[in-house]
């Protein structure tokens, strides 16, 4: 038996009810992201890429189709099981970092482990290691406000990695950073992907950022328009 892919989507749809009208954000997306892949989801705003991102991150459930994260069908999972899945398999990196403002870098990074019942000392030790991996070993006790945007995003990446997930989802990770810092963050993500074999999926509308990924998935109007490396669910064996 092969290891199940990090993500497997078969004809996934997602519709919203907005003031009584039904908005179809995803109109049937099939996609497969293997272990250790580095992919970018690209598309203009309103294309449905954020919706796809939330589905891949188990923050949301599809209204149709099948979505498997780490081999588990999302539709069959309870809220608590979804939370557990997020905690154990997925790391998030957000455009606006989403760090707790009054909490040190160390405790910010340690946060996901708290929901796993890891003892405090152990949490902090692993958080310190994760911060060292993103080159912030000297910033453990700094609060977000005392750090630059690039440093904050590196803290967020450390937080995404501390739980040793199989998939890191980065939603416009460079959106709030200047170009140079943005590329540094991308370097870091690429290095982590290469060195640790964690799959990275980033969402962006910037072409030069998307090109850093080995695979680009273009989305428009809720459909995959173009996939540079189309691995369809049924020919998974090729990977």
């Amino acid at each position, binding site marked *: 038996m092969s290891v199940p892919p990090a993500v497997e989507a078969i004809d996934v749809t997602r519709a919203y009810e907005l003031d009584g009208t039904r908005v179809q954000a995803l109109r049937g997306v099939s996609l497969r992201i293997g272990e250790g892949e580095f992919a970018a989801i690209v598309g203009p705003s309103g294309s449905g890429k954020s919706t796809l991102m939330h589905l891949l991150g188990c*923050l949301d459930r599809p209204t149709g189709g099948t979505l498997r994260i780490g081999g588990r069908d999302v539709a069959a999972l309870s809220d608590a099981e979804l939370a557990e899945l997020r905690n154990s398999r997925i790391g998030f990196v957000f455009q606006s970092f*989403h760090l707790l403002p009054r909490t040190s870098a160390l405790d910010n990074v340690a946060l996901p482990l708290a929901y796993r019942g890891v003892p405090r000392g152990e949490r902090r030790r692993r958080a310190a290691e994760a911060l060292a991996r993103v080159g912030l070993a000297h910033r453990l006790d700094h609060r977000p406000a005392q750090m630059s945007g690039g440093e904050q995003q590196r803290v967020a990446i450390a937080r995404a990695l501390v739980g040793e997930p199989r998939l890191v989802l980065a939603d416009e990770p460079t959106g709030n950073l200047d170009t140079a810092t943005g590329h540094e963050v991308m370097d870091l993500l690429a290095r982590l992907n290469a060195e640790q074999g964690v799959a990275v999926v980033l969402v962006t509308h910037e072409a030069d950022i998307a090109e850093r990924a080995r695979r680009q998935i273009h989305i428009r109007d809720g459909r995959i328009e173009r996939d540079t490396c189309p691995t369809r669910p049924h020919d998974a064996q090729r990977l």
Partner: protein
Amino acid sequence: MRLAESLRVALEALLVNRLRSALTMFGVVIGVAAVVVLVALGSGARDLVQREIEGLGSNIVFVGPGEFSLTAAPTAGRLELTDVEYLRQTLGEDCPIAVSLSSGETVRAGRNEAFATVLGTNEALPEVFDRPLRPGGRYLTETDVESRRRVVVLGPRVAERIFGDVDPVGRQTIIAGARFRVIGVLEEKGQTFGQARDNDLHIPVTTAQRLLGVNRVDFLALRAPSAADTGRLRAAVVDALERRYPGERFSAITQTQLLGTVGTVLNALTGVLAAIAAVSLLVGGVGVSNIMLVGVRERTREIGLRKALGARRRDILAQFLAESVLLTSIGGAIGIALGITGALAITTLSPVPATITWWSPLLAFTVSAAVGIFFGVAPARRAARLDPVTALRTE
């Protein structure tokens, strides 16, 4: 997340908004302090009254016609002086029996005037109620009662008010227009039900009956040989009287029963006071709820993030519940300290008694923690139910 973890996170959150937390806590502090103080006052009142009833002397059985009542004078006066002799013979026991017929009258001596309770009684009263005399005088005798003499024994307060420093024994006084000779002065005794018993004056019951134009007495009081005899004596007295007056009802009450009755009334009073105070605790609880809702709104993004990182609904629920319970129980602890201090200050600095019972701080603390849960549930549930996608998008 474990409980200790939730409490630590909650404490950190409370410390972030120190002023707000303190002000919210203040409502609970006041509510709990009010409960503790008011319950202490109620209990103090009960203890005071119980001490007073016990101060009447133990082993006493009160006998009156109809249903015995402390507050209302008996209506059907079917009790006479001759009943004393009748009871003494029927019961066949050597226990003193005092009679009582009282009325409020004006007492004068020279230019001094006072309003006092005139108590028509017999020679047995000092023995029944344990009321010694000051040296230099005597109490009413059997002869005084039989020959309806106009002699009076003054309570110390009345004596002071109409005679001042002068020794009243042997002097004349005017009671309800009639001239009386003072034969003795009672020792100080204190109060019962807020009535100065030192403001009494005792005259022979026969004289009192003529003065008031009646031939009844209000009630009898017996002193049983021991506390164990009171119950038996009580039944025997009622039985004897109802045999003597067929068709009439009599009742007798022992001091223990009196304590029980009064205790029940005063416990109810304490309960009412506690309930009033509890209202302010409730208001404090609403304040907690309000501030928690504000907190949930402010921290929507944080909640969204925590959920994205793997927090389950119950983790978020526990986090916010811990916060509100911490808020109210810290407030409760401060309120208890404040309430106990207040109650002690009241007892020390004013004549009002306050007794701190062991259960009232305990109750107040439990209630304040419960208030935290009750008023924290709605905001915490709101937080727990937030959709992570929406929460993360919130600015």
